[in-house]
């Protein structure tokens, strides 16, 4: 069979690239100084310790160099990034009260559809502050706290102080230090002991203002034997000015607890997505990551799981789709720091039209983590020869009572498979699309239905019309 070139056109991102008129009530001057950081803190009426923490982070930020690995970040100029934009609306508890233009954008992004009876609440972040928020009465009765970070700092101060950026300290890397200095918005979730939240909590946030960075902080504490599924999704309109996203997610999974953290990331193609996510898992606890990276210009995203307690478990399912002009450097890190811990990393990456997809991972097993098991499986699909796909895993094992396996595979859509499907009466185009969807299936099936549909639509849109 003759080898046909697979040409996959760029998605018409239409609805994702709709932007509102730049209307905000307050905007700090460009650039980053202690004065700006102090202003941000004052605007939020924060306690003293938070201001100190911000100023400390700013110092760290100035001292830490940019990473000497990964995609080039030379286009980043922090002096030109407006770090904080407060939307022109205050917190709303009711969808009806959200201003029309914001609502309109969210509607086009599909938020209200997702806001169904079965869903617990939506914390939608518009620019840097949460504009819409609701938690179901039943959850409140169970003692579940779901609020925005600003409110949490005030209302649940002792708890926030105990956990905030303890798992991801500002010293970790330059962008996390920046985050510590200018963080704004994000979600705070607390699930008390033994409580099972059986409907997923979701937060949808996005960037809007040109040149604005978004530094939302997500802090989730799932107490002993509790259970939670948290969904994070994001999409931003397209702008010409470089946009930076340096969020931070800290997840504390206590003894016997389970937390599933799902993300479909769909930033516009000018975004630098330098997000940091980390989970600390205690005895017999479990963290389950589901991660889809579709958007952004550059992504550096490697959720880390620290298995601190005996029998703790981590699962990571990720998909990355890199199209034209995209350099998506994603992966996962797992540290086995206790006996009988287990981890399972499974990733799929697709690259087309000059896109660069990189899997970067690390599995570390400490000397005391005997009887640990780790399995890593990476598969990459190249849709044409102008794209790139690299796999850069690493394993560091410090004891012998372990079972560690790693597998990776790279290739294109097999001609035989296409031929087979075509011999069954399916068109070449549909056959190829079918194979790509099948390739993504292991990740799609981990998502809640409406998100799986959204992801499948995204893949279909990416492939539509031009394959073959």
């Amino acid at each position: 069979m003759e080898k046909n070139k697979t040409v996959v056109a760029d998605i018409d991102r239409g609805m994702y690239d709709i932007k509102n008129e730049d209307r905000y009530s307050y905007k700090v001057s460009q650039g980053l100084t202690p004065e700006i950081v102090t202003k941000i803190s004052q605007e939020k009426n924060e306690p003293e310790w938070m201001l100190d923490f911000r100023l400390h982070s700013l110092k760290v930020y100035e001292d830490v160099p940019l990473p000497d690995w990964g995609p080039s970040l030379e286009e980043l100029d922090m002096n030109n990034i407006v770090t904080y934009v407060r939307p022109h609306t205050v917190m709303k508890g009711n969808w009806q009260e959200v201003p029309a233009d914001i609502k309109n954008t969210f509607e086009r992004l599909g938020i209200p559809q997702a806001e169904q009876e079965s869903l617990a609440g939506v914390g939608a972040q518009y620019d840097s502050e949460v504009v819409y928020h609701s938690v179901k009465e039943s959850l409140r009765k169970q003692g579940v706290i779901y609020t925005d970070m600003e409110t949490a700092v005030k209302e649940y101060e002792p708890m926030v102080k105990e956990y905030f950026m303890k798992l991801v300290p500002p010293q970790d890397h330059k962008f996390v230090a920046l985050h510590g200095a200018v963080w704004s918005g994000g979600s705070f979730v607390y699930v008390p002991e033994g409580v099972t939240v059986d409907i997923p909590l979701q937060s949808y946030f996005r960037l809007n203002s040109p040149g604005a960075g978004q530094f939302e902080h997500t802090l989730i504490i799932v107490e002993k034997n509790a259970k939670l599924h948290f969904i994070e999704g994001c999409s931003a309109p397209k702008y010409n000015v470089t946009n930076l996203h340096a969020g931070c997610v800290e997840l504390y999974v206590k003894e016997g607890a389970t937390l599933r953290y799902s993300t479909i990331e769909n930033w516009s193609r000018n975004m630098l997505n330098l997000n940091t996510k980390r989970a600390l898992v205690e005895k017999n606890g479990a963290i389950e990551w589901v991660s889809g990276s579709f958007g952004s210009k550059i992504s550096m995203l490697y959720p880390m799981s620290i298995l601190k307690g005996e029998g703790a478990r981590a699962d990571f399912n990720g998909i990355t789709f890199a199209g034209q002009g995209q350099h998506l450097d994603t992966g996962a890190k797992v540290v086995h720091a206790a006996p009988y811990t287990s981890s399972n990393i499974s990733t799929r990456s697709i690259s087309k039209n000059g896109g660069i997809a990189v899997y970067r991972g690390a599995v570390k097993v400490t000397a005391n983590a005997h009887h640990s098991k780790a399995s890593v499986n990476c598969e990459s699909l190249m849709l044409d020869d102008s794209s790139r796909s690299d796999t850069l895993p690493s394993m560091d094992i410090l004891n012998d009572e372990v079972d560690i396996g790693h597998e990776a595979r790279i290739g294109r859509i097999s001609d035989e498979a296409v031929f087979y499907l075509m011999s069954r009466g399916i068109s070449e185009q549909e056959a190829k699309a079918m194979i790509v969807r099948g390739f993504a299936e292991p990740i799609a099936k981990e998502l809640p239905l409406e998100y799986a549909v959204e992801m499948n639509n995204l893949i279909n849109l990416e492939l539509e019309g031009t394959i073959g």
Partner: protein
Amino acid sequence: MESIDKLNAIPVRTWKWLGVNETRLAGRIPEKIKYDRQPLIEGNTAGYMVAPIAAHSDQIRFMTKKFAGGVSQAADEFISSQRNSGYFIEISEDAKLTKPLTLYYELDAKNPSLVDDHFIFARENSEATVVIYYSASDFPAGFHGGMTRVYAQKGAVVHVVKVQLLHDAAMQLDAVDAAIEEEAHVEFTLVELGAAESITSAKVCLNGKNSSGQINSLYFGNQQQKIDMNYELKHVAPGARGLIESRGVLLGKSQKTFRGTLDFLKGAKGAKGRESEFTVLLSPEVRNRSIPLMLCGEDDVEGQHAASSGKIDEEQLFYLMSRGLSEVEAKKLIIEAAFAPIVAKIPVAAIKDAISENIRRRLADV
């Protein structure tokens, strides 16, 4: 030359905290390099020609561009400037050598530091096997720095076997490097058994259409041994085939770092590369690091890598013990069986025996 850093760097850097981007020599390279016991294979026999490497510098310089380089540029320069042994081996066109050419190096008190630089030039459709064996008579420590380059012209088949059985306190810095033309095949079989610190590199450039290259490696670390490997297969031309197969055992407090890269360059249509690495861990104090990279700029390729490490399979062990073997005997048997396919590639019986003997002796520590 003092101790040098930035050795065995991976082609694409990753997180610093992993400590795998590169390595450095902890020991110091002796100030005086001294080795006079030259192996005797010179001559100009039918099918091949062997001469001191210095006499062919010009010819080699002309071909250097085809190679990927060794442990580091500084190390390569050190070897070419400080070498005290080395041969230029030319295999004539269409010559098929049935007997392996074997070079024996033995370090002793009077010859404690060897720097050897070899170049194997296999002309069109020739076939040859070259074995280089490093050992030490009853003598502590020693240093070996070396480089072996292979240039295989169209249709040539070359197998280079390197067996390192230096003293447990020795230090080694060694590189093999191949440039392979159309339809040619180069295979390296690398056995690392001795030395306290061993930093080795193997790079294969599959420059010609349908060329193929293979790296087989076997290592055994015990006590405080540090083994650092950097293997790279560059698939440049259409139809290139590459294979890396590494097996090893870690005992005591030994440490191993394995970097294996399959690189598919744009244009290498129909290339296939595979890499597999398997490590048996026999002590709770070992450190085992693996970085199996796959870089791909071409869609019409098939790349695969697999790495695994862990203890000996309990069921296998149980089965053998139920047949009356002691635990240690059973472990030896399983490890020898795992190593057998690579040991079998060595064409010299005496060397095979020396390897088996060494492995058995060291497994006594289990």
